[in-house]
């Protein structure tokens, strides 16, 4: 039985490949449009999803590095933060840990401009300690110094909005924790050491960085949190499972939890794009089906003859289904090669398109000079490739199932 299957496979492959490559009856032309369709669709998928991944990763990455961290750990009161950090640093996932506190307040400049802000208390050496933080933050002016509790670094837009510059004095108004009452208003004059930008207005409008010692003084009853940076953000679930077991850890919030609405919106956007692009492949599959139906019909005589000499109908159906598989494989390989090359060089391509449009029409747009981040996720390409292959096999099967109903004697009589 095994030997039969092998020899059956041999003639099926031989025959299908012969049909597919034979130029005598225009099979190449039958296959050309579906191949182009699959390749073009796949190229579009790779470029669009690549850019979406790049933007998504870039955006989330910036948020993680500057604001949310990969995880935030709320610790139990009376826990030795230093020791806990040491334990966390010794887990396989953790790259670095940082103590931090956050507080909302109002910032007022000497010229009267004021605005609500998010005050983030960080270790004084954060800029050298956390390379990711330093990398994502662009210093507009000054130097990132929060060595003393009198120094503050302002978000670029926040500084502009209140009219504060480097070395100017600003006044911080917060509701701190009192010894006898819950909240007491606290005013603190500080000197601006730097203006920084993240590229995201919603952060740059609000953020200011201070030495954590200042917030510890303002919030003596509040236990600081620990921000966690992981080696691999995808390992967050594994880390959370391990971290919650550690003594002194009250709760752990992952970067997905912290940015859930944004993350969900980005994923929804991505899946929506997948659905739209999937429709391209449905159209291609319909094209494969109708093309293969024509091929099957034009080979009716061959089917009748091969049935007469002992080919089973299932094997004959396989011969034609393989045509669909060849189409899919060629389309996928072409799409992969061109798509990946295009995605990697998409910014150069946009520049070229911009240049051509400007040359031909005189119209210029900043869009074409914008640098898009691209991230290609091999797993996604594998899933899409398998999806195209399955869809092609299904379309091919729909086209050739009629073979099972063919009666060789009727075909040979009618020819």
């Amino acid at each position: 039985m095994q030997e039969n299957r092998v020899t059956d496979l041999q003639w099926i492959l031989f025959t299908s490949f012969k049909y597919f490559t034979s130029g005598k009856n225009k099979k190449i032309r039958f296959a050309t449009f579906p191949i182009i369709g699959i390749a073009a669709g796949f190229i579009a998928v790779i470029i669009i999803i690549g850019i979406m991944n790049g933007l998504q990763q870039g955006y989330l990455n910036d948020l993680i590095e500057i604001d949310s961290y990969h995880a935030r750990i709320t610790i139990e009161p009376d826990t030795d933060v230093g020791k806990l950090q040491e334990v966390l640093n010794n887990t396989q996932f953790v790259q670095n840990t940082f103590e931090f506190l956050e507080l909302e307040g109002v910032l007022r400049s000497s010229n009267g401009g004021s605005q609500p802000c998010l005050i983030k208390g960080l270790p004084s050496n954060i800029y050298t300690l956390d390379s990711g933080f330093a990398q994502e933050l662009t210093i507009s002016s000054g130097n990132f110094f929060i060595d003393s509790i009198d120094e503050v670094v302002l978000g670029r837009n926040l500084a502009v909005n209140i009219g504060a510059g480097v070395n100017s004095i600003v006044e911080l108004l917060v509701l701190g924790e009192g010894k006898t009452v819950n909240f007491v208003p606290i005013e603190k004059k500080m000197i601006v050491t730097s203006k920084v930008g993240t590229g995201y207005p919603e952060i740059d409008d609000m953020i200011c960085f201070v030495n954590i010692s200042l917030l510890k003084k303002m919030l003596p009853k509040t236990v600081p949190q620990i921000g966690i940076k992981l080696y691999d953000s995808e390992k967050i679930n594994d880390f959370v499972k391990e971290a919650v077991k550690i003594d002194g850890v009250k709760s752990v919030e992952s970067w997905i939890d912290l940015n859930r609405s944004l993350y969900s919106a980005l994923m929804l956007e991505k899946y929506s794009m997948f659905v739209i692009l999937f429709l391209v492949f449905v159209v291609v599959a319909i094209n494969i089906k109708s093309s293969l139906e024509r091929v099957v019909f034009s080979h009716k005589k061959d089917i009748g003859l091969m049935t007469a000499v002992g080919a089973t109908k299932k094997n004959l159906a396989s011969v034609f289904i393989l045509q669909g598989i060849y189409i899919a494989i060629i389309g996928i390989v072409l799409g992969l090669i061109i798509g990946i090359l295009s995605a990697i060089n998409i910014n150069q391509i946009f520049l070229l398109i911009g240049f051509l449009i400007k040359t031909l029409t005189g119209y210029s747009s900043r869009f074409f000079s914008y640098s898009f981040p691209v991230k290609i996720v091999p797993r996604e390409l594998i899933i899409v490739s398998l999806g195209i292959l399955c869809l092609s096999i299904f379309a091919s099967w729909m086209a050739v199932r009629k073979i099972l109903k063919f009666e060789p004697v009727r075909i040979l009589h009618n020819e």
Partner: protein
Amino acid sequence: MNNFNEEKLVPDLITAIEVKNLTKSYINGTEILTVLNSVNFTLMKGSSVVIMGKSGCGKSTFLHMIGGLDSADSGSIFAADHQIDSLNSDKLTQFRKRHIGFIFQMHYLLEDFTALENLIVTSMINGNQKNKAKESALALMKDVGLLSKINNYPGQLSGGERQRVAIARALINDPDIILADEPTGNLDEENSRIIENLLFGLVKKYQKSLVLVTHDSYISNLAEETLILQKGVFKGDL
């Protein structure tokens, strides 16, 4: 393997085909047309018979039925030691593959394959490896005198040459029985004689049983027996 061999009867050393009370009718509108009416037929192993008759008298239908391509209304067919009227579709396919070689009026060569590949693929369908199939195919192409045209596509061959390839194809799987349906029907007289002599010569060489349907009375001289199918029954000296 499958259960195909279970259908095999006790081997008959002398009978290649035995048909008993075979009946086949077609419905044409309201009219029932009986083309074969309780036909009996016997062919000895290694012998040849020519069946003649008017167009539409049922010659080809008879041939297709003993080749397992068509089914009878009633009666039984024993061919190559198998009762083929009791075989299901899959087993009939196996039977055709191993025991029957068809030659049709139209050559029915695969247009996308060269002459040699037409033989190779037929042999591969029968479960042979490509190398072995090629070896057998080359030997048969030599037998039919087309060794120089093995790489020609059917469209590059003359009618006679195509039919010679079809004969070689019918023999490639070493079948017990060759069924030829007007193999010279589309050829001129000169080519017809060549094909007929070649076919009968090869059948004799390889000791095959041959049933040949034709309008050509010349062929009856080459066969051991000639039957006339008329009004649904055979007339002749069986």
